[in-house]
Each structure stands twice: as structure tokens, then as C-alpha cells.
């Protein structure tokens, strides 16, 4: 066997290994993040996050809430479950106050929200938005919608 044949065989083997690796990564699915920003949580500006699963498969997500400086306030790993064709509504105020001591006040101010999930969670399969209410949640004076920015890894 000459040098050229050996090199060609090695290149072929390398290509095969790379192909198998790529196939495995695709089979395992990808992780997707959905980021929401430009929202503020206060007693009179409640925020509600909507996650609409448009598929027939369930979605399990992580939820992270950051303060204005990027400090992680809340992390819920695998706690957000959205059933097939269902919508999950998350009250940010509830998430921020859940782990606090009895008289401790929850964070107030600008926040960033990140949702992380594996396939089928993606820009094509999920609809994610936050509703920023001005005033009371039940009888708001007004409200606006902020859509999520999706990034797939």
C-alpha cells in the first residue's frame, strides 16, 4: 500500500467519523433559547409570560429571570411544562416572590427573561411573548406585548 492510498483511506475514515458525529448531534436534537427584554416588574406593572406549544409533543423548559445588571434572580430547571397544543402562563411576580422569606420584598425594576428547552422547543414550534400590564392585572389601564428572540444552538 503506497502513501497516497493510506492518506485517502485516512481521509475517508475521518469523513465517516465526522458524518456519524453530525448525524448523532441531529438525532439528539438541539437546544433553543427564547429571550424577552424591555419589561419591568413592579406592583403596578405586572408581567405575564405566555408560552404556546403549537406541536403535539410536550415541552419541558428552564426559566431564568435576570435583573437589569444581568444578575440571575430566579432559575427554575425543567419546571416549566407545556402540554401538546397548550399554553402556559407564568406570572413573573409569583416567580420572584416564591422563594423569599415572609416579609422580604421581591425585586422591582427592569428584568430579562430566558427560556431554555430542547427540541421541539424552537421558533417554529413555540410562540413566546410577555404581556406588560400597566395597572392592575385584572383591570389594567393598558398593556403591551413583547415578543421573544429565539436562538438555536
Amino acid at each position, binding site marked *: 500500500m503506497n502513501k497516497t492510498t493510506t492518506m485517502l483511506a485516512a481521509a475517508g475514515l475521518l469523513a465517516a467519523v465526522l458524518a456519524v458525529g453530525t448525524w448523532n448531534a441531529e438525532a439528539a436534537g438541539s437546544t433553543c433559547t427564547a429571550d424577552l427584554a424591555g419589561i419591568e416588574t413592579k406592583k403596578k406593572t405586572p408581567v405575564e409570560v405566555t408560552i*404556546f406549544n403549537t406541536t403535539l409533543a410536550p415541552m419541558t423548559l428552564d426559566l431564568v429571570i435576570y435583573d437589569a445588571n444581568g444578575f440571575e434572580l430566579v432559575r427554575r430547571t425543567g419546571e416549566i411544562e407545556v402540554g*401538546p397544543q397548550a*399554553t402556559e402562563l407564568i406570572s413573573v411576580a409569583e416567580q420572584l416572590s416564591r422563594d423569599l422569606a415572609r416579609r422580604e420584598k421581591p425585586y422591582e425594576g427592569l428584568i430579562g427573561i430566558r427560556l431554555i428547552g430542547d427540541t421541539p422547543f424552537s421558533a*417554529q414550534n413555540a410562540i413566546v*411573548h410577555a404581556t406588560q*400590564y400597566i395597572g392592575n392585572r385584572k383591570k389594567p389601564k393598558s398593556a403591551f406585548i413583547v415578543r421573544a428572540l429565539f436562538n438555536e444552538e
Partner: protein
Amino acid sequence: MRIASLLLALAAIAVAVVFATTTEPARGEGDATLYVSGLEIGGKTKALLRIRNVSASDQYRVHYTVRDPRAGAPISQLAAGDGALVRRGATLELELTSIVNEFRKQLEAGPYAGPVQVVAFGSGAVIDDFGPQTVVVEAFVKQGSKIRPVNVEWRTD
């Protein structure tokens, strides 16, 4: 005997296929699905959805389903049966409280209050597909005199 059973089974499958294809409205390949979320109904809270056909040549049958978002279960007639005909230039207005409560009345259930979601698609397109290029959607929630926006998004399979 075996052949007769086999033929009977095949006939049953054929009937099931015909039934499934006739009950499911025909959707074009390029037609998009409309998802409206962030809606709410009940008491003085009303949700309105307006769908305007701005296609140059087509009329569509709009098949919409109002769902209870928590379970994803329909709380209106599935796909609006044969669908609502929206001619070129026309606007279809859906007042979701009445649609849901009328459907529930038929099932002898009381009125519904809470968040809802709407999924809609069109059928009958000949030239222009049903989607964001041909249909203008406006949706909002009315709470007393206050109006708030909701989220409207399109997806193509």
C-alpha cells in the same frame, strides 16, 4: 373465510379514510396557520378577532378553533365546521365570548371565563395562499372601556 375477513377489514379502513378526508377541511400546501394568544374572555372581558381578506383574487373558508389554553382543548366547534366564507375584500369578525358560550350551551355547560387561544387556517385558495400576504388580522381584548393588544403570529409548516 379468511379472505372475507380481510376484505371486510380493508373496506372498514377505506370507509375510515374517506370519512377522515371528508371531515378534515382541505388545506393548501403553502397555506399558513394563524395563532392568536394572550386572549381572555368572561364577564366584562371580551376578545375580538378580525380577519380581512386582501387577496387579489381568492376567497377563503376560515377554519378557526377557540381553545382552552391550559389543556389545549377546543371550546368552540372544531375548525368551525365547514368554515366561515370570507370573500375578497371582506372582513370576518369573531366575538369569542359568544362563540364559546354558544358552543358550550349545546353541550349543556355554563359560560367560560379565562384565557383562550385561537388557531385558524384557510381553505379554498386557488391562486394566493391563505397567509400573512393575503390576510390582515387584528385582535384585541376589551376590558370595560380599556383595550389591550394580543399576540398574532403566523406559522408555515
